[in-house]
């Protein structure tokens, strides 16, 4: 079943679908309200669950009184740790595809409280409003234990994690002697950075609807980035037969990582449905969206040493990040610094600090969005100290090999990103002096930064079925969380068989489809796209063989490489007048359908000899009101090198959206913790600020041409993460250029700018 990787198609046939700005194939459903999300599926007799959340951060439940809730007519049951059924015992049964090392959180497992807002009970009632009301009547008494939630207070109480999570690499061993080189450097910077806790806050709140069929089988509509991940998790936890459960998630209202692990609403809905033998929906409230994973708060130090000509001589990047008491959540924060620039003396260090919080969770460009901005702000400060242009400094230390491993990049068009981005932005006109541009009370600043992310690939399987009507159906259990998976997979499939996208239907978000990995880390096009291509290639081969065998047919005896597919036809390359329709080939061969399944596997050998990544250069303009400290990001140019772009329309949107995320990270997003209570306090989206329309102005996206034959048969690297990575730094650097104020504490809010301006004035 393993498909041999084919050679990337460099030359495209006319009418090819790859690279076309196709409008989303699911667009019509989304603009008419026809797209249904997890909480929008229903069944007769659907019951509604509402979760009760803990008010303490650590301790034990000493008493739960559910009598007032149960006394209400229409309340069906209140599930607690005291009455839950038998569940899996071993940690491994609670692990999911994105679980780090440790003991996963188990909802309603026992009396122990390990973080504030932890779910402690589920009320199930005949209506949503009744469940919500009854949840308020559940009385929970606690015995609180001392907790710690303050990373700054405990930053010295850390440990060094190992390879504690899939995809995580501990920092490489030091190169040279970075500390000595720093001390001896002609010019140096040494900065401390803090990055606030952030919550994903997709627009759709997490929800699961479990349809309980009469035969006891379950159809589970879940908000997830991996239907099969949710599927195996609930089967393991509840000891259910895999064939009795099907998880579906045709539409996901954003996730950004929040759906990479099964969340507790899924547990609750399955628990209630299996126990009550009824269909049940559980939807989190917006405050409860702060009750699970988050981007971890991080404290970093970046120290750089350089010669006067800008050559980096020392690079130190240290990070302390929070994790929970029960799991070692890790992400790659510092390794990028050893990869992005040539430097002989490098020391990278990454530590975890345990806090009484829910385990952090991958959030868009996990680690890179935290670590790379720290490096890139430090580079800007270094450029300033050197009196060197920030782009020049980066080009001076540019590397075509990954210094962490010594391997060459399979492709790296970052230099072109700098050049094209700078040109589009008008960077050449920049006066390097801070505070050199002003319009009335507004200080204007131009800043830039670079970004980097991995080009990963996992194994995936796709099945393609071609009907005699020339319509193609392709399926794989991946997800579309707004990323455009439906559309790009349709294009990849249509491309192979020369079909119009209208003739192709792609299915995803269904655990019964062929295997696909969780949708994250920008690897879906690479992994699933390669499988789709492989499956369609097989269908193509069978059609060519059939056409070749058609006695007296226009393509009789033709070889595989002599045919192109266009407009639903097989056409002889040498003589386009020799053509036959797919339908005619199938009829002649008495085929009603052609069905092929294929598994894509990464080019392991070629990959192991290379470093693989996407790169970006971001240029930003800000206007800072000098009197009030408010910031407006008026212009961003993001130049991206991510291999081949399957759909420039949807890819552009991904980058644009990630720039908006970068604006949020730079200026607005922060979850505030009350350390006395050990509780997040601004747990709603009125007070947890994400950018609104008025915050966002011109965003210009450039896709730099990049050719890559190592990454996968498509030559596409994925664009979900790279768009955010350098953006907070470009904005922070633009603020410095505007004001002369260097803020290393994200988000950069009004108070920090005013304080910096005051300091600089010497008040």
């Amino acid at each position, binding site marked *: 079943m393993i498909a041999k990787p084919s050679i990337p198609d460099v030359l495209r046939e006319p009418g090819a679908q790859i690279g076309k700005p196709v409008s989303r194939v699911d667009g019509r459903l989304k603009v008419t309200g026809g797209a249904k999300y997890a909480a929008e599926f229903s069944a007769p007799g659907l019951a509604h669950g509402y979760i009760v959340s803990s008010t303490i951060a650590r301790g034990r439940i000493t008493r739960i009184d559910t009598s007032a809730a149960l006394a209400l007519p229409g309340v069906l049951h209140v599930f607690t740790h005291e009455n839950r059924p038998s569940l899996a015992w071993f940690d491994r049964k609670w692990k999911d595809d994105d679980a780090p090392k440790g003991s996963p959180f188990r909802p309603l497992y026992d009396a122990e409280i390990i973080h504030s807002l932890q779910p402690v009970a589920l009320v199930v009632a005949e209506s949503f409003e009744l469940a919500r009301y009854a949840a*308020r009547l559940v009385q929970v008494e606690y015995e609180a234990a001392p907790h710690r939630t303050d990373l700054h207070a405990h930053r010295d109480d850390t440990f060094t994690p190992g390879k504690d999570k899939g995809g995580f690499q501990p920092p490489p061993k030091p190169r040279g002697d970075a500390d000595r080189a720093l001390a001896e450097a002609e010019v140096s910077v040494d900065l401390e950075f803090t990055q606030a806790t952030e919550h994903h806050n997709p627009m759709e709140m997490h929800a699961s609807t479990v349809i309980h069929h009469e035969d006891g089988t379950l159809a589970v509509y879940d908000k997830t980035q991996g239907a099969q991940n949710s599927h195996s998790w609930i089967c393991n936890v509840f000891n259910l037969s895999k064939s009795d459960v099907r998880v579906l998630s045709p539409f996901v209202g954003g996730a950004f990582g929040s759906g990479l692990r099964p969340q507790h609403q899924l547990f609750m809905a399955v628990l209630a449905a299996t126990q009550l033998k009824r269909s049940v929906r559980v939807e989190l409230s917006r*405050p409860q969206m702060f009750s699970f994973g988050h981007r971890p708060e991080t404290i970093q130090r970046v120290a750089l040493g350089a010669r006067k000509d800008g050559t980096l001589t020392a690079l130190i990047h240290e990070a302390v990040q929070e994790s929970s008491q029960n799991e070692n959540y890790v992400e790659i924060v510092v390794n990028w610094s050893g990869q992005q620039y040539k430097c002989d003396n490098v020391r990278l260090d990454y530590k975890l600090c345990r806090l009484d919080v829910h385990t952090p969770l991958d959030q868009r460009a996990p680690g890179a969005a935290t670590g790379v901005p720290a490096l890139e702000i430090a580079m800007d400060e270094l450029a300033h100290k050197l009196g060197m242009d920030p782009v020049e400094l980066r080009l001076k230390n540019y590397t075509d090999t990954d210094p962490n491993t010594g391997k060459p990049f399979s492709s790296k068009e970052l230099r072109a990103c700098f050049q094209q981005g700078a040109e589009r932005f008008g960077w050449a006109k920049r006066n390097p002096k801070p505070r050199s541009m002003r319009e009335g009370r507004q200080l204007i600043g131009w800043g830039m930064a670079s970004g980097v992310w991995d080009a990963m690939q996992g194994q995936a399987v796709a099945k393609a079925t071609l009907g005699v009507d020339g319509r193609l159906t392709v399926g794989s259990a991946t997800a579309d969380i707004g990323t455009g998976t439906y559309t790009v997979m349709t294009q990849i499939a249509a491309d192979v068989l020369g079909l119009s996208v209208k003739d192709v239907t792609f299915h995803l978000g269904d655990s019964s489809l062929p295997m696909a990995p969780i949708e994250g880390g920008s690897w879906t096009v690479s992994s699933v796209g390669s499988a789709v291509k492989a499956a369609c290639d097989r269908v193509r081969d069978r059609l060519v063989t059939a056409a070749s065998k058609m006695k007296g047919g226009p393509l009789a005896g033709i070889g595989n490489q002599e045919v192109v597919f266009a407009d639903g036809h097989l056409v002889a390359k040498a003589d386009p007048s020799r053509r036959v329709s797919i339908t005619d080939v199938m009829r002649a061969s008495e085929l009603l359908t052609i069905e092929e399944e294929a598994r894509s596997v990464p080019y392991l050998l070629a990959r192991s000899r290379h470093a693989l990544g996407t790169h970006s250069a971001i240029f930003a303009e800000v206007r800072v009101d000098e009197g009030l400290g408010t910031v407006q990001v008026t212009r961003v140019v993001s130049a991206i090198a991510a291999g081949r772009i399957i759909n420039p329309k949807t890819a552009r949107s991904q980058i644009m959206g990630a720039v908006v995320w970068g604006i949020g990270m730079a200026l607005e997003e922060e979850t*505030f913790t009350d350390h006395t*209570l050990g*509780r997040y306090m601004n747990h709603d989206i009125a007070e947890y600020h994400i950018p609104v329309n008025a915050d966002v102005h011109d965003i210009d996206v450039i896709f730099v041409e990049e050719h890559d034959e190592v990454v996968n048969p498509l030559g596409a690297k994925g664009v979900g993460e790279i768009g955010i990575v350098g953006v907070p730094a470009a904005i922070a650097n633009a603020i410095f250029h505007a004001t002369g104020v260097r803020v290393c504490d994200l988000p950069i809010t009004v108070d920090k700018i*005013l304080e910096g301006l005051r300091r600089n004035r010497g008040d």
Partner: protein
Amino acid sequence: MRAFTYSRADTVEDAVRALAGNPDARFVAGGTNLLDLMKADAMRPAHLVDISRLPLDRIEETEDGGLRLGALARNADTAWDERVRSRYPMLSKAILAGASAQLRNMATNGGNLLQRTRCYYFYDSGTPCNKREPGSGCGALTGVNRIHAILGASEHCIAVHPSDLCVALAALEATVRVTGPRGERTIPFAEFHRLPGDTPHIDTTLGADEIVTAIDLPARGFAEHSTYLKVRDRASYAFALVSVAAALEIEGGTIRAARLALGGVAHKPWRDTEAEAMLVGKPAEAASFAAAAQAVLRGAKGHAHNAFKIPLAERAIVRALSEAAGVQTP
């Protein structure tokens, strides 16, 4: 949201009667604040009296040359009303600086007056809050207080009033018309909202059995020299860190009258008549504005996370007065 019963009032008299003797009943009109708080379990009325269809939605001229804003006129209709825009531009600007277009289409003027704080602790029934549960303590005092009060707070409550509209009304010296079982009365705007003291659960001086029927704007609208400035954490759809309603009358470069009110800094719209008096007779220039701003913030007190509001408020006052006067200052 707890269980409650619902009825609709067809006349003001009906409405007042429906509330009489029923301390657990509340009026609902726009619903944008009350229903939000009921879902958060921060308010738990047992009965709602729907007053949204009472004929109190008009904006009319008053005999003394002012405008009467019906209590049930929507915020959006008020802000876009031509008379309001031309004669009270500061008020229009303040309304449009608040909430979103959708919420302004729902929210009423009377409801805006009774809007409750956005303090995190008030909203989170899992935490202490003297406003929500008298006697439970003030979580914000020692907790997260970036958005909290710097003026007029007490050891029992450091919450702020979140309204924009009310800040402009305070500066305009509006009058609140109310009706209750004891008949009609008027409340000067400055007396409508309270400071928390040791009873932070009481926001206003409106009787529990009274209904707001209208807000009267005096003739003097400071149309020529006024503005509303709002500083917040994002460009729109966010509550004020600090806001300023500033209004001046200027003759030949000299200030003849001044009004100054702040939002986001206190339990009520913070009007400072002493600072206003300081401005009168002074030249309309930066030094005068700075002196007034310092006077307003003289007694200000910051907490762990909100001390920045003190210099920010000073700067915002200077900026707003400058804009109102039409002069350039930093």
